[in-house]
C-alpha cells in the first residue's frame, strides 16, 4: 500500500494503480474523454492533466502510476489551466452543433465544456470537416464531431476482439474509420455508441427519436441470451425509445450485445398482436378478452372430457418468464396432463428422469475470469453468448487456455489453444478419447459405466492436447453449448462431459440456450417430476388434441420446424399466447391471445448462473395485450383450478420458486444419476447437418427487429461445407444447391467454409428458408440444382 495525497486528502492506495483510479477512490472527479476503466490506456485526449508535486509539467491522471508520498492536485490552478487549454483545443474543430446532435444532453464534451470551455472561441479559422462513414445498420456517424479519443478503436480491438475501426491519416487529418468498404459487424457494436464521448457515433435506430432528458430510465432484464444482461430501458410517452446497459459488474459489466440493445424495435412493430382474436370459419375476428378466454377454457374442458387430459399439452418459450412458465405447467397439470415443455430445440430427452436438478453453468459468471482452462463442447460460442465470450476473451489475455470441440467453427475472435473440428456423430468418440487420456494423465479411474464404451475412444494428437490442457489446469471448467444440447445424442455428450469434468476436477455446466433455460426447469415446465408427460419432441411427433403455445413460433423455435406446424395444425384447438401475429399462426391457431413482451410485463428470468432477476413493466401494455402471467392466471381461475388465486406477481414468483423467495440453489444441479452402461451411439454414413441458430434468428423479438435484420449476422442461411465435402458431393461453392432430408428440402447457396468438419454441412436453423427440412440435425443430402 502506498500513502498519497489527492487534493489535500490523505489516502492509502494499492501499488500499481493510476492517479485517475486513486482520485476516483476519494471521489475527486478528473475530467476525461479517452480514459475508460475497461479499455487500455491511451492518454491521448489530455483532458485529465493534473498537477503532481515535483513534476515540472501537468501529468495525465489516467496514465500516471501512483508513487509513495505522491501529492496530486486535480483542481489546482496549474491543473485547471492545463485542462482548460485542452478543452479549447478540443472545441476549435468541433462543430458545436449540439442543437441538432443526438448526443446533446448526454455528451461528455458538452458537459465538460460548461466547466472548462470558454464563452467565446479564440479560433476564427475554418473548422475541419470529416466525411461520415458507413458502419452498418446500427451505428450512425457524424465524424466531424469526433475528438479522436479512440475509445471505439480500442473497444473493437480489445473487447470485441477484432480491429474493425482504426485511426487513419495524420495530425489534423486523422480520422476514425473502418477498413475500406467494410462495416463494423461485431455483435457488440452498439457499445461504441455508449463509449463515444461526443456525438460522432450515435444509434441509428434511435436517431432523432427523442432527447435524453425527455425519457424516463427504467430498469429491466434482457429476455434473449442466457446471461440476462441488465438493461436501462428509456421510455417516452409509454413507448420504448432505446435500450442501454445497466452496469452490473457480475453479469454484463458495462456492455450489451447488439441483440439486447436493438431488439426493442420489434416491440412497437407492425406485427404486434394487440387484440384477442378468434378464428371463425376461415376468418379472424377481434374480440374481447372474456370471449377469447372463455373459448379457450371451454375448448380445454371439452377436449379433456372427450379425449382425456393427456390429449392436451403446452409448448412454452425458454424466453418466457418464470411466472409464465410456472403458471403454464400449473394449468396443464391442473387439468391432469404432464405434457409441458420449453426445450423446443432439444431432441434427445433420455436423461430427463436422471437429472438431479436444473442444468446450469455450474459457477458464477463473475468467476469466469478466474478460470485457467476451459473446454467448450458444441457451441457457436461467440454468437450464442456474446458477453460470456467477451469475458473469456479477457481471461485468455491473462493466461486462460481454451479448448473446444465442435463440428463447425466460425471465428471466435479469441485464441483457441486446442480446436477439435469433428462431425456431430464423432463427438462422443473424441470425448471418450479425452476421457481416457485424462484418466491416464491424472491417474483418476473412469467410472465403470463407461468401461466398454472406452473401446470406441479415438485418441489422436488433438484429443491428447485437450486432455493435457485440462489436466494441467488448476481452475478448470467444462461447458456444454447450445449445439451440444440440441445434438441428436445430447445425452451421450452430457454424460461424457460430466465424466470428463469429474476426472479432471473441473466445474461442469451448461452455457444455456435462452434467457430462462434454467428458470424453465425450476418452474417445472418440463414433462417429468410431479406429473409425467410428453416432452416437446413427443408432443410434436403425434398430434395432441389441444395445444397451448406460449410465445412459441413452432416453425422457427422448434427443432422440427414446419413439421411441427403440420402436427399442431391437426389439433382441435390451438391457443397461441403471443406478443406477435405470425403468418403461420394465422393458419394453425384457433385463438390468438396478445400477451405482453418483457417491457410490458413483470416477471423473472433465471440466468445461466442460477441468478433470478425480476423486473417490472417499463411501459403500459400495447393495445389490449396483457401480461402473460395475468392471462394464464385468469384462465386457471376460469377452469376452476386450484392454486391460481394469486393476486400479485410476487406471489406467482414465490410459487414458481417452490415457495421460496428466490432460487433454491440446491435445485441447481448438473449431476446425472448413474444407471446402466454407457453405450455410445452409432456413427452415421452420410452428410450430416450442423445447424447453428444465428444470433438474430433465435427468438420472436429479435426476428422482428428491423435494424438487426439488416446486419450481416442476419443474412440468409447458406450451406457451408469444406472443400473436401464440396468436391465429394459434386457441389461448387457459389452455386445454389438443394439440401434435403426425409421430411423436406431447402434451396440455398453453397459456400466453402474450412471451419466445417469433414462430412458436414453447416446450415442455420430458425429461418423460414430451412424450416421445411423438419429437423436440425441428422443426415441430409446435398445436390446441385
Amino acid at each position: 500500500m502506498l500513502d498519497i495525497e489527492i487534493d489535500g486528502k490523505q489516502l492509502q492506495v494499492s501499488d500499481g494503480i493510476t492517479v485517475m483510479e486513486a482520485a476516483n477512490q476519494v471521489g475527486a472527479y478528473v475530467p476525461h474523454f479517452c480514459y475508460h476503466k475497461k479499455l487500455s490506456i491511451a492518454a491521448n485526449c489530455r483532458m485529465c492533466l493534473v498537477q503532481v508535486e515535483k513534476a515540472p509539467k501537468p501529468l495525465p491522471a489516467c496514465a500516471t502510476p501512483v508513487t509513495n508520498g505522491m501529492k496530486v492536485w486535480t483542481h489546482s490552478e496549474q491543473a485547471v489551466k492545463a485542462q482548460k487549454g485542452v478543452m479549447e483545443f478540443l472545441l476549435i474543430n468541433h462543430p458545436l452543433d449540439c442543437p441538432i446532435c443526438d448526443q446533446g444532453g448526454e455528451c461528455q464534451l458538452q458537459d465538460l465544456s460548461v466547466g472548462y470551455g470558454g464563452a467565446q472561441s479564440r479560433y476564427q479559422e475554418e473548422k475541419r470537416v470529416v466525411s461520415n462513414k458507413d458502419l452498418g445498420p446500427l451505428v450512425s456517424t457524424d465524424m466531424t464531431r469526433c475528438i479522436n479519443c479512440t475509445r471505439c478503436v480500442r473497444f473493437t480491438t480489445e473487447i470485441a476482439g477484432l480491429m474493425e475501426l482504426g485511426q487513419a491519416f495524420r495530425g489534423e487529418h486523422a480520422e476514425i474509420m473502418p477498413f475500406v468498404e467494410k462495416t463494423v459487424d461485431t455483435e457488440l457494436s452498439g457499445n461504441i455508441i455508449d463509449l463515444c464521448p461526443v456525438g460522432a457515433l450515435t444509434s441509428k435506430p434511435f436517431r432523432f427519436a427523442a432527447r435524453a432528458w425527455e425519457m424516463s430510465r427504467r430498469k429491466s432484464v434482457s429476455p434473449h441470451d442466457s446471461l440476462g444482461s441488465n438493461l436501462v430501458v428509456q421510455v417516452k410517452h409509454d413507448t420504448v425509445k432505446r435500450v442501454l446497459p445497466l452496469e452490473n459488474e457480475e453479469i454484463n459489466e458495462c456492455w450489451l450485445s447488439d441483440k439486447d440493445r436493438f431488439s426493442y424495435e420489434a416491440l412497437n412493430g407492425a406485427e404486434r398482436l394487440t387484440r384477442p382474436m378468434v378464428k371463425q370459419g376461415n376468418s379472424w375476428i377481434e374480440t374481447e378478452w372474456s370471449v377469447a378466454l372463455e373459448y379457450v377454457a371451454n375448448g380445454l374442458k371439452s377436449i379433456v372430457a372427450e379425449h382425456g387430459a393427456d390429449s392436451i399439452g403446452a409448448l412454452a418459450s425458454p424466453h418466457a418468464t418464470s411466472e409464465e412458465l410456472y403458471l403454464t405447467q400449473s394449468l396443464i397439470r391442473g387439468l391432469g396432463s404432464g405434457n409441458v415443455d420449453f426445450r423446443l430445440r432439444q431432441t434427445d430427452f433420455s436423461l430427463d428422469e436422471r437429472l438431479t436438478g436444473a442444468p446450469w453453468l455450474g459457477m458464477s459468471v463473475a468467476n469466469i475470469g478466474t478460470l485457467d482452462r476451459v473446454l467448450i463442447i458444441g457451441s457457436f460460442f461467440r454468437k450464442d453468448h456474446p458477453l460470456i465470450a467477451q469475458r473469456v476473451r479477457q481471461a485468455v489475455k491473462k493466461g486462460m487456455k481454451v479448448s473446444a470441440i465442435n463440428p463447425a467453427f466460425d471465428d471466435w475472435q479469441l485464441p483457441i489453444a486446442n480446436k477439435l473440428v469433428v462431425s456431430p456423430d464423432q463427438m462422443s468418440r473424441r470425448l471418450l478419447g479425452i476421457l481416457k487420456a485424462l484418466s491416464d494423465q491424472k491417474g483418476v479411474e473412469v467410472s465403470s459405466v463407461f468401461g466398454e464404451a472406452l473401446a470406441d475412444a479415438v485418441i489422436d494428437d488433438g484429443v491428447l492436447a485437450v486432455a493435457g490442457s485440462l489436466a494441467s489446469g488448476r481452475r478448470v471448467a467444462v461447458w456444454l453449448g447450445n449445439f451440444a444440447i440440441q445434438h441428436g445424442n445430447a445425452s451421450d455428450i452430457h454424460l461424457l462431459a460430466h465424466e470428463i469434468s469429474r476426472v479432471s476436477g473441473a466445474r461442469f455446466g451448461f452455457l444455456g440456450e435462452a434467457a430462462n433455460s434454467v428458470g424453465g426447469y425450476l418452474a417445472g415446465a418440463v414433462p417429468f417430476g410431479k406429473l409425467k408427460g410428453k416432452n416437446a419432441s413427443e408432443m410434436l411427433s403425434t398430434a395432441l388434441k389441444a395445444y397451448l403455445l406460449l410465445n412459441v413460433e413452432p416453425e422457427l423455435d422448434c427443432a422440427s420446424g414446419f413439421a411441427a406446424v403440420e402436427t399442431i395444425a391437426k389439433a382441435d384447438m390451438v391457443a397461441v399466447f403471443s406478443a406477435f401475429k405470425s403468418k403461420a399462426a394465422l393458419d394453425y391457431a384457433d385463438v390468438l391471445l396478445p400477451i405482453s413482451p418483457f417491457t410490458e410485463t413483470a416477471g423473472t428470468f433465471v440466468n445461466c448462473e442460477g441468478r433470478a432477476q425480476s423486473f417490472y413493466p417499463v411501459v403500459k401494455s400495447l393495445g389490449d395485450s396483457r401480461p402473460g402471467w395475468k392471462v394464464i392466471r385468469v384462465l386457471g381461475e376460469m377452469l376452476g383450478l386450484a392454486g391460481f388465486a394469486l393476486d400479485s406477481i410476487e406471489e406467482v414468483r414465490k410459487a414458481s420458486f417452490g415457495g421460496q423467495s428466490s432460487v433454491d440453489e440446491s435445485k441447481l444441479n448438473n449431476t446425472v444419476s448413474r444407471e446402466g452402461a454407457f453405450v455410445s451411439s452409432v456413427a452415421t454414413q452420410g452428410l450430416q447437418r450442423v445447424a447453428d441458430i444465428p444470433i438474430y434468428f433465435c427468438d420472436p423479438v429479435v426476428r422482428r427487429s428491423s435494424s438487426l435484420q439488416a446486419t450481416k449476422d442476419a443474412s440468409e442461411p447458406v450451406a457451408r461445407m469444406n472443400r473436401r465435402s464440396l468436391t465429394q458431393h459434386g457441389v461448387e461453392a457459389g452455386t445454389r444447391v438443394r439440401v434435403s432430408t426425409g421430411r423436406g428440402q431447402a434451396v440455398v447457396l453453397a459456400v466453402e467454409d474450412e471451419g466445417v468438419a469433414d462430412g458436414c454441412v453447416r446450415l442455420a436453423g430458425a429461418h423460414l428458408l430451412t424450416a421445411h427440412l423438419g429437423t436440425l440435425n441428422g443426415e441430409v443430402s446435398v445436390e446441385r440444382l
Partner: protein
Amino acid sequence: MTVQGIILSPDLDDDRTWRIGDYVKRGGYDALKKIIADKMPADQIIGEVKKSALRGRGGAGFPTGLKWSFMPRAFPGAKYLACNSDEGEPGTFKDRDILRYNPHTVIEGMIIAGYAMGCERGYNYIHGEIFEVYERFEEALQEARDAGLLGKNILGSDFSFELYAHHGYGAYICGEETALLESIEGKKGQPRFKPPFPASFGLYGKPTTINNTETFASIPFIIREGGDAFLALGKPNNGGTKLFSVSGHVNRPGNFEIPLGTPFSTLLEMAGGVRGGRKLKAVIPGGSSAPVLPGSVMMDCTMDYDSISKAGSMLGSGAVIVMDESTCMVKALERLSYFYFEESCGQCTPCREGTGWLYRVVHRIENGLGRPDDLDLLNSVTTNIMGRTICALGDAASMPVQSFVKHFGEEFAFHIEHKKCLVPKDVQHEGSKIYVA
C-alpha cells in the same frame, strides 16, 4: 581549420570506401575483435562509454552510457536494439552521410552495443526518403555477415547478433523512438505514452535501447581508443566530435565533423561564411525544433550541448540553419509551422489541434491578415501545447514559434500593422536566389 573526423573523414568517397575492405583498413572492426578476443565484460564497455561522455546525437543529448545501463541485465528472453536513422528533422542530413560513406561503423557500433546490453537482435530504422542509403546498408550488412562479423557466433565466439535494416515511409513522427518501435512492429507510427520506457517495455514489449546513428557510429572509436581519448576530443560533459549539418545562407553547406566546443564562428567559416557577404541574422542551432537564436548571440556560442543550452536553445541533432538579413522571419516561421502541422501524428489533442492553429495564425500574419492580439494568441497556444503532449513533437512545434516571436517580435508586429514584410520583398528575392558556386 580541418579536422580529421572520427566518423566521416574528408577522404571517404561515395563509391568505394564505404565497403568493408576499406573500413577494415581504416581500423574498422578492430574494436569488435578486441572485445571478442579479450572477452571484455559488458560492464567495462558501458564504463568506457560512460567515461567518454558521449551524449545522444539524435537531439536530446542523453548520456549514452547511462542509457545503456538502464537495460535490465537479468531479463530472461529477447532484448532488442534499435538504431534511429529516421532523420526527419528539417535541416538534418548527417545520418544519411554516415550511412552512405561509413555504414560499417554503425554496424560495428550496434554489434558492440548488442554485446554490451545482451541483445541478440537489432534493427536500423532508415528514413524512407533515402532509399539508396537503405539499399547500401543492406549490402553492408551482407558484407558483415559474409565476414562472420554479424549473425550466429560472431568471430567464432558464443556471441550472436543479428541486425536488420528497416525503412520507414517518410513520417517525421517515426523518428520519435516509441513511434519508431510501433512502426517496426508494423503499426501506425504513433508515440507511446511513457512510462513505461523502452528499456523496460520496448519493441514487441521487450526491453529495448534506441540510439541515433551517429551515437552508434561513435562507439567503435571509443572502444578502440578508449573513452578518455573520445572525451579529450571534445570538452568535459560533451565528449567527442559531432557532425553538424550546416544549411541555409552559407557559401558551402554540408556536414562538418568538429570537436564539441568548437566556436560557432569557426563552423561558419568552415561552411564558407554567410552567403553574399550579407549580415548574419539568425541561426537555428539544432534542427528546426530548436529555438532560433539571433546571429549576434550565436557568434558568442561554442558548438556543444551546454553552451547552446545556456544561450536559450538546444544543440539538438546538430542541424545548423543559417539565415541572413534577407530572410523574412515571418515567412520562415510559416514554413516551419506548416511542417509541424503536416507531421503531427494526430494522436493527442494539443498537438493535433494546436499545430494547425499555430500554422493558420502565422500564415494569416504572413498574408497581411494578422490581428493585433495574434502574438499573444501564438504565445498562449504554444504554452497550451508545450508539456501537455504524449511526445516532444508538440514542444518541437511550439519552440520555433515562441523563439521567433521572442527574438523577432518587431517583424511580426510590423507585418500585422503594415500588412507587409519588414524586410523589403526585393531584398528577400535577391537573398533567395539560388546559390551558384
